[in-house]
């Protein structure tokens, strides 16, 4: 396979800034960004995210005081933990949408596809497999997951085939899909809710105790992540030396390791600070024959103990912490995997190259048609992953599940800095975009603000984000 190098500017490393000799009179800030090669736009997005969080925490704190960082209910471990779970489904899909939009394609059918996959596999699980194999048979969840992923990939590839080989514009193909797939989903379940899902399958939704990693494994995972970050930085430096590329100053390398580890450990600490809900703890103690110790009632405590015959909240008693939830881990895993695919594989580079200049890419020998099918199939696969998370989380599947998700997925991608003109976009940007959007929705819901105003704000943020991004890019030129 021919390996072609395209305009380096669209690829992630090495950034052109690091290749130019240092200017003598640059400001400290510019120097910092040049040395660390941190994307200023990413920093801007993270700052926006933190600002949104701070506003909601202060605002909810004004309504009623809570133990959040700024006195509200938003910046509490519990809410942040829930936020990650709520974001995971959209975030997973938005990583695929980045590649599609980078390639100047779009998929409007992801929401309907999600309902079709969820309903189709739920019918398989609940009406076919469960009666045939017996409720709770381990093959049910395995087949359920496999069916979701396979069906997703298949539908995605079908979309891609129509776009690439039948030469129908992606907008039309997937608009048709948006309408048609939700129709099929309706017919499959006759408009009814299919429930409940297999008990093991439910683990993927994060709603049951079995899908919580616990503090011990969360810390182990965090430690492993920190080591990986350090290794990646050191290895990157070694590679640069090998190919005679310009190097970051040592302090910048150290700073990257420090800030990366800090983020990982901080997130883990927050996740590990969320105690099991009282009801879950109580049920767990009952089913595992744990003795609930006697104690003194305290409404603010997170542990449980006995006050006479009654189970009450208390400060020290029986308690466990949740740690990372499975859906959040899946989303993080998908983010890492997709970042690797986008920046480190020839497949990813072809996608960016085709998005930057489709004609040039084709002339250079990239099979853009087959590439299109593959990118759509990948999108479908990710919708399959999301459908597992969504239906497991709801412990049910209905044709309403996933409807209008396409709008949120595209919005997350665009807020995350992916250009609809093609060629530009990052996976982590889309993840942050998804987090920003879900933060706004959850925060407003926490404040008990009406759904209509949530839509209004999310729409406004979408347009504002694109405007700011364009201003930034123009200045850069």
């Amino acid at each position, binding site marked *: 396979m021919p390996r072609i190098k395209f305009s380096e500017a669209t690829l992630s490393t090495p950034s052109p800034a690091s290749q130019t000799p240092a200017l003598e009179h640059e400001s400290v800030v510019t120097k910092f960004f040049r040395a660390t090669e941190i994307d200023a736009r990413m920093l801007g997005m993270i700052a926006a995210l933190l600002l949104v969080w701070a506003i909601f925490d202060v605002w*909810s704190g004004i309504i*009623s005081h*809570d133990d959040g960082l700024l006195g509200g*209910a938003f910046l*509490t471990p*519990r*809410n942040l933990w*829930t936020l990650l779970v*709520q974001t995971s489904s959209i975030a997973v899909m938005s990583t695929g949408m980045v590649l599609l939009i980078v390639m100047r394609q779009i998929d409007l059918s992801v929401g309907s596809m999600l309902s079709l996959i969820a309903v189709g596999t739920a019918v398989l699980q609940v009406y076919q497999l*469960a*009666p045939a194999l017996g*409720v709770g048979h381990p093959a049910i969840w395995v087949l359920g997951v496999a069916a979701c992923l396979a069906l997703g990939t298949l539908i995605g590839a079908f979309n891609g085939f129509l776009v690439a080989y039948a030469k129908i514009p992606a907008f039309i193909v997937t608009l048709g899909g948006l309408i048609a797939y939700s129709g099929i989903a309706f017919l499959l379940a*006759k*408009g*009814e*809710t*299919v*429930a*409940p899902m297999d008990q093991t399958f439910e683990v993927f*939704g*994060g*709603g*049951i105790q079995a899908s919580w990693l616990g503090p011990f494994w969360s810390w182990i995972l965090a430690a492993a992540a920190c080591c990986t970050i350090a290794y990646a930085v050191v290895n990157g430096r070694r590679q640069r030396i090998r190919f005679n590329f310009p190097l970051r100053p040592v302090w910048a390398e150290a700073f990257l390791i420090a800030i990366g580890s800090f983020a990982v450990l901080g997130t883990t600490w927050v996740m590990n600070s969320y105690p*099991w*809900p*009282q*009801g*879950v*703890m*109580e*049920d767990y103690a009952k089913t595992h024959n744990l003795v609930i110790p006697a104690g003194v009632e305290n409404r603010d405590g997170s542990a449980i103990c006995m006050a006479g015959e009654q189970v009450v909240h208390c400060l020290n008693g029986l308690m466990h912490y949740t740690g990372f939830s499975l859906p959040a881990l899946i989303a993080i895993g998908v983010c890492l995997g997709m970042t690797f695919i986008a920046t480190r594989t020839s497949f990813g580079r072809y996608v960016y190259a085709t998005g930057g200049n489709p004609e040039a890419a084709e002339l250079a020998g990239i099979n853009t048609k087959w590439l299109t099918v593959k990118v759509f199939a990948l999108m479908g696969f990710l919708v399959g992953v999301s459908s597992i998370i*969504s239906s497991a*989380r*709801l*412990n*049910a599947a*209905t044709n*309403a*599940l*996933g*409807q*209008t998700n396409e709008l949120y997925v595209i919005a997350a991608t665009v807020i995350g800095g992916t250009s609809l003109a093609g060629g530009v976009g990052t996976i982590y940007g889309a993840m942050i975009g998804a987090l920003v959007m879900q933060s706004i*929705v*959850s925060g407003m*819901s*926490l*404040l*008990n603000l*009406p*759904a*209509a105003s949530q*839509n209004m704000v999310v729409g406004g943020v979408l347009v504002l984000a694109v405007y700011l991004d364009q201003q930034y890019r123009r200045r850069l030129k």
Partner: protein
Amino acid sequence: MKNLVKAVMLGALAATAMSGLAEAKGKTIAVSWKTFQEERWKGDEATIKAVVEAAGDKYISADAQGSAQKQAADIEGLIAQKPDVIMVVAFDSDAILPSIKKISDAGIKSIAYDVQFEDPKALYITFDNVGVGRIMAKEILKAKPEGNYAFIKGDKGDPNATFLFQGQMEVLGAAIKAGKIKNVCETFTDGWKPDNAQKNMEQCLTSTKNKVDAVVSENDGMASGVVAALKAQGLAGKVPVSGQDGDLAAINRVALGTQTVSVWKDTAQLGKTAAEAAIAMAEGTAMDKIAGVAKFNGGKKKVEMNTILLAPTPITVANIGDAIKAGHITKDQACAGTKDVAACK
């Protein structure tokens, strides 16, 4: 068998031939359906047809396939076959009115089936929709007479969401005023979507620190989201939850104890009542003499009509058996995962 078919066909032919004559025994009941796209209408048709034919009368019908124009043509066609009563499931309750006038001009009686059109000469048969909200609230109130209530309402654009809430407030208003019940969360749910309801419930639990004692959800789909959110906090089965539609999954949740009530509109009951009313009208019974008829003027234009308002059935642990007996749900579906309820043993 063949003979039977022949006999039925002959009978049908005879009925058609003589339907215009006063001495004819078999009456003809016609139905103009708006669509068969949704599963339920086929069930309605089967019920009506069975009741009409069991009474020795004839059933004829037309399907408008979701078009107001086709429905107008359908009704002209039905009038031409000279039935005694025409039942109409209107696709558009305003556009249908000229056709209804044609029916009465031809001396035929009309019934508005499930969908209201406001013509004082017609009989309107439907479920008491405001009552659904009342029943939900009553069942939840029974389970939790006081405490913190959360209200998960339907889509803000659907007037039904507000009607249901009104019904709930009729029941709960006094207790709220007295301070026994506190409304801690009240949200509309975009598109009646279960996953939105789940997120709203999660945020409600976060903001109240789990101090929610009961949840009034306006339908079963949203109840599935509410129960999932409660389950994640170990509260499923401890906090009463309402719903409506008689979803199979919801009836299963009632059996499992995670949902308190699903208000069910038994469409078979609706079909049976309408068919019986149609037969009575065909035989010349005056509208206001039919059992269950009362005056109703709650429509858009406030036209007073003779109306039969059927009471929806609350499905609770106590009467799951009835839903199974009615053939709405199989025992296996209703009882998946539990044997604790009487109907499941």
